């Protein structure tokens, strides 16, 4: 992948990378840092990454960097979360700051955000990689380091939890 191709690929996928990082970290500032780092890593590994496989490579790299951030957060629990998505229990959600609010309706978007925020890190990453990013199961299993059967069960349970959460909130019948 040479320079002009790198720039084209980076422009094509940068928003997917950023969105995925926002979903995983629930913090836009951190997500922007991660997206930058991931795209620079793509540049550094450009000789080995095929253009058609770039998105999968980028999403996996995003996931790995987000895991690092999660670990750092856990190691420093006293550091408050910076400006970004409100925590799941936020009683007065601001639809403007929601990922899904604009497209699927503010109420549903806010509820989905809360429901996703209530999942553990790994199931949240799994269902986002599968349903939002459309990665195949085997790639997700490799990325998350879990057996295929375990991953499928994890995603199926997560779907049911999200669905139940939306029903509880009354945004879905």
């Amino acid at each position, binding site marked *: 992948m*040479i*320079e002009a191709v790198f*720039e084209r690929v980076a*422009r094509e996928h*940068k928003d997917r990378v950023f969105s995925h990082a926002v979903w995983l970290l629930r913090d836009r500032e951190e997500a*922007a840092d991660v997206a*930058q780092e991931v*795209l620079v890593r793509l540049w550094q590994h450009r000789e080995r990454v095929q253009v058609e496989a770039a998105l999968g490579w980028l999403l996996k790299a995003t996931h790995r960097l987000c895991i690092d951030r999660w670990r750092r957060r856990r190691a420093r629990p006293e550091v408050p979360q910076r400006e970004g998505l409100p925590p799941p229990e936020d009683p007065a959600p601001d639809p403007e700051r929601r990922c899904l609010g604009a497209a699927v309706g503010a109420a549903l978007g806010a509820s*989905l955000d809360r429901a996703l925020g209530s999942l553990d890190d790994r199931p949240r990453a799994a269902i986002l990689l599968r349903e939002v990013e459309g990665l195949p199961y085997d790639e997700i299993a490799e990325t998350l380091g879990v057996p295929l059967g375990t991953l499928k069960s994890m995603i199926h349970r997560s779907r049911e939890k999200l*669905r139940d959460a939306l029903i509880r909130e009354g945004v879905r019948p």
Partner: protein
Amino acid sequence: MNACERCREWVHARIDGDLAGDAARELQAHLESCAACRDEAASLERLVLDLRGAPVERMPDDAFAAVLARTSRASPGRTASFVRRRGAWIGLAAAAGIAAALLSFRPGDDGGPTPEEIAQARRDVQVALALTADALQRAETVGKRVLTEEVSPTLQRVPIRWRNVAESGRRNRT
């Protein structure tokens, strides 16, 4: 496992596109007769559609500009050296790209392209050239691998005495 529990597993498989044949037909028949499972299946499928329709957020422009600044600083002359190394191929690709751009050019009603059209055409040609160069680079890599891993072992299977005959025949001709 009763029919409703089995149905729940199959609904996930159907969402994943992994359900076919008898299982798909059995699921459909069950959903037609069981309102609870039908509602559950519909709500799961709707959830997945909601997630798949999630909008993509725009990466902040300053963050992407920082990426380009970091990568352009890290690549002095990278493209130029690549082009020099493959001069003939790139020349051919350049000719093809520019020819394609010229062939696709159609003057507007006023008899000439606007500056925006010219700028866009230049960008398109640059990207076409870059893509061609990238394809050639990959073709070279694949070619080397095929020669090493497939062609050479195949030739090695030719009996040695035949190879000697071929070699002496070539010497006689020269």
